[in-house]
């Protein structure tokens, strides 16, 4: 095939001359991309022209933020790199929240943005924004390509950086003239990143030290973070925890890395974590952190965090080690390599006393709620969803109470099943994330457990689900409040509910107007039936659960308190 002017034959023979836009598409395909998300605009038209007949499934969101969250959730659900495209200026600016969300949660993504013509850069041209400047702090790496000859290599580098080490979003800014310019692409143009080195194998002496500390420990706790899921090391984690006989607590981002139904699981620690995880951390003599970053929502008051413990920290990112909490035995490397190395060296120790203590805490302080009410309790809705899906759904969430209850009452047995904005806490993540996850896993049951106000932020994306025939389910725990904000106002601002109550639309009507199925549930007895119907729908479906308005999330470690200073335990006990 020879390329003629005016035809669509952009990708002809091997060493023929090609446009930048065609090189972009070819390189994406070479990198294994079969799905992308993105939105159009003037300076990405050359690229979109080449995508017209490319073998790539392309999903167009209604807002670039939505597209960015979709690519993020696509990556979290599949383990592949998520790809999003946006135009210059406003398009690129709309990516910022999505990039920051992915950055905080270490999600591998590549964002491709159009930019004004090279010679106009810096002139305040129409739709010009300093995209690399704006996105620098919210990306793992970004750059602008000013020469078509650098395009293919730069995109290869972007995928490499995004997906290796501690993953993260990488943005490549591409002026429109570079997309139009032509060159003969150099297939052998390998990545050149002299400053990018990843240590995957742990230092053997550190591993031995860690194993010795574990074998000596009477009261160990394994504290697992999202890094274990990024590393695809759930199996290795299981082998290690079983072999050494360790209780396991998982951060919000790690839920499902270890089966929560197992007796070793302490569920989630931290601000709204389980009392048994928090007590275990405070009383342990050894804390083994793997792929976790000692976030303040996990540690509470740092000074009194795990006060009796020696700390082992396994992480691929050396800057994570001793950043918030001083570590005794650091091991830099990939959890997938280090966990098996540790497994070889650890002994199975019964630790009867310790496990007894833990099981007493578990009996005394399980996650509970009072279901003896006529109103619909949000926790009840989640429990019902959990039972009807056999705990096997992919769950996305909004941010706030809905998110914490989803983490407390849906129990995950596999990794990549809970997709939630943990680090940034981005309201509006849930719906686009469900779309991205459903695109990645067409056969899975994908449920967005959302808050009303979180849903308000990105609900326009419902139309994206309809258009792409994605049977996602959205369960709005509708309390009319910014519930988590209201909870803080109740507890710390004397119940002055300043500006945290808003009137909502009829979400079932909204859903129908956008072409989805809409169900309203305002009676407790209708909850199971509505969930059953929702699960059987082949179309996107929104269920508006009118839940108890002033329910609180318990237990709670108030900001600045130690993990063992939980409030709400008396309330939980009174429900027993």
């Amino acid at each position: 095939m020879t390329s003629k002017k005016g035809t669509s034959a952009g990708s002809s023979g091997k060493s023929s001359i090609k446009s930048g836009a065609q090189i972009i598409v070819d390189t994406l395909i070479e990198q294994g991309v079969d799905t992308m998300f993105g939105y159009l605009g003037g300076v990405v038209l050359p690229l979109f022209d080449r995508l017209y007949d490319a073998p790539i499934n392309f999903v167009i969101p209604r807002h670039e933020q939505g597209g960015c969250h979709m690519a993020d959730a696509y990556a979290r659900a599949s383990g592949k790199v998520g790809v999003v495209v946006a135009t210059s200026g406003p398009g690129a600016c709309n990516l910022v929240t999505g990039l920051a969300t992915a950055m905080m949660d270490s999600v591998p993504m590549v964002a491709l943005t159009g930019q004004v013509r090279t010679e106009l850069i810096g002139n305040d041209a129409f739709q010009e924004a300093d995209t690399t400047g704006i996105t620098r702090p919210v990306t793992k790496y970004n750059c602008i390509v000013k020469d078509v000859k650098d395009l293919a290599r730069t995109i290869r580098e972007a995928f490499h950086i995004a997906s290796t080490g501690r993953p993260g979003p990488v943005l490549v800014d591409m002026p429109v003239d570079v997309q139009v310019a032509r060159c003969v692409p150099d297939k052998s143009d390998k990545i050149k990143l002299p400053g990018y080195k990843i240590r995957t194998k742990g230092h053997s002496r550190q591993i031995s030290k860690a194993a010795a500390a574990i074998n000596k420990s009477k009261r160990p706790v394994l504290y697992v973070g999202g890094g274990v899921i990024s590393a695809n090391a759930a199996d290795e984690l299981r082998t290690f925890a079983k072999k050494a006989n360790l209780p396991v607590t998982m951060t919000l981002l790690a839920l499902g890395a270890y089966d929560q139904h197992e007796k070793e699981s302490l569920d989630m620690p931290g601000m709204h974590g389980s009392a048994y995880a928090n007590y275990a951390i405070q009383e342990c003599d050894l804390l083994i952190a793997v792929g976790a970053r000692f976030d303040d929502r996990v540690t509470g008051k740092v000074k009194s965090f795990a006060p009796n413990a020696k700390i082992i920290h396994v992480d691929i990112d050396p800057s994570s080690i001793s950043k918030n909490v001083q570590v005794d035995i650091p091991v830099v490397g990939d959890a997938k390599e280090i966990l098996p190395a540790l497994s070889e060296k650890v002994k199975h120790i019964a630790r009867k006393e310790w496990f007894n203590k833990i099981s007493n805490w578990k009996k005394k302080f399980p996650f509970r709620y009072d279901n003896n009410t006529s109103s619909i309790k949000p926790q009840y809705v989640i429990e019902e969803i959990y039972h009807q899906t056999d705990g096997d759904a992919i769950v996305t969430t909004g941010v706030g109470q809905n998110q914490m209850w989803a983490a407390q009452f849906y129990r995950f047995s596999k990794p990549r099943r809970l997709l939630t904005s943990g680090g940034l806490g981005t309201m509006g993540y849930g719906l686009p994330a469900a779309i991205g996850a459903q695109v990645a896993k067409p056969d899975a049951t994908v449920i967005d457990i959302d808050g009303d106000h979180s849903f308000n932020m990105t609900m326009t994306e419902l139309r994206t689900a309809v258009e792409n025939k994605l049977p996602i389910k959205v369960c709005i725990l509708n309390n009319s409040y910014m519930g988590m904000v209201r909870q803080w106002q109740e507890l710390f601002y004397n119940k002055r509910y300043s500006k945290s109550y808003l009137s909502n639309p009829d979400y079932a009507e909204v859903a129908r107007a956008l072409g989805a199925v809409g169900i309203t549930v305002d009676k407790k007895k209708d909850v199971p039936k509505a969930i059953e119907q929702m699960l059987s729908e082949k179309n996107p479906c929104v269920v508006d659960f009118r839940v108890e308005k002033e329910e609180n999330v318990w237990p709670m470690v108030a900001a600045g308190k130690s993990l063992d200073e939980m409030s709400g335990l008396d309330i939980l006990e009174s429900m027993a």
Partner: protein
Amino acid sequence: MKHIISALVENKPGVLAQVAGMFAARAFNIDSLVVGRTEDIKLSRMTIVVIGDDKVVEQVRKQLAKVVPVVKVQDFVGQPVVARDLMLITISTPPAKRPEIQSLIEMFRGKVVDIGQKFITAEISGPEEKIEAFINVCKPYGVKNVARTGTIAMPRQAKS
């Protein structure tokens, strides 16, 4: 405590912004930052002086190393190093004081690089304390302008 950190970085556009942005975002204080070419055209050297306790500086080092185009990071603390600043300083000089000021410049092994009716501009290099000391001795005459580089440094018997 003062740490001199030396970073070899790729000589690419945007690297300075990436490094400076990281310092700002993580609330690290930079005392001085000097960038210049090296013997290898693909690499530049950034010499960064930071003041902080060991924990902070350890984070600075790790976060710097994490910036993708940063190739190598060294903290010279505790090592014998040669550290130098360069200064251009303009001093008010009535003709009667000229010999006096010239002899001061000589004492500091500086050079007169510009001279006028009422001023002398001198070039002084050396450790930071020497630069400070020179400014202090000039103050009584009137210091009109100072331009200083930050510190650059090399470990003694350097193998970099």
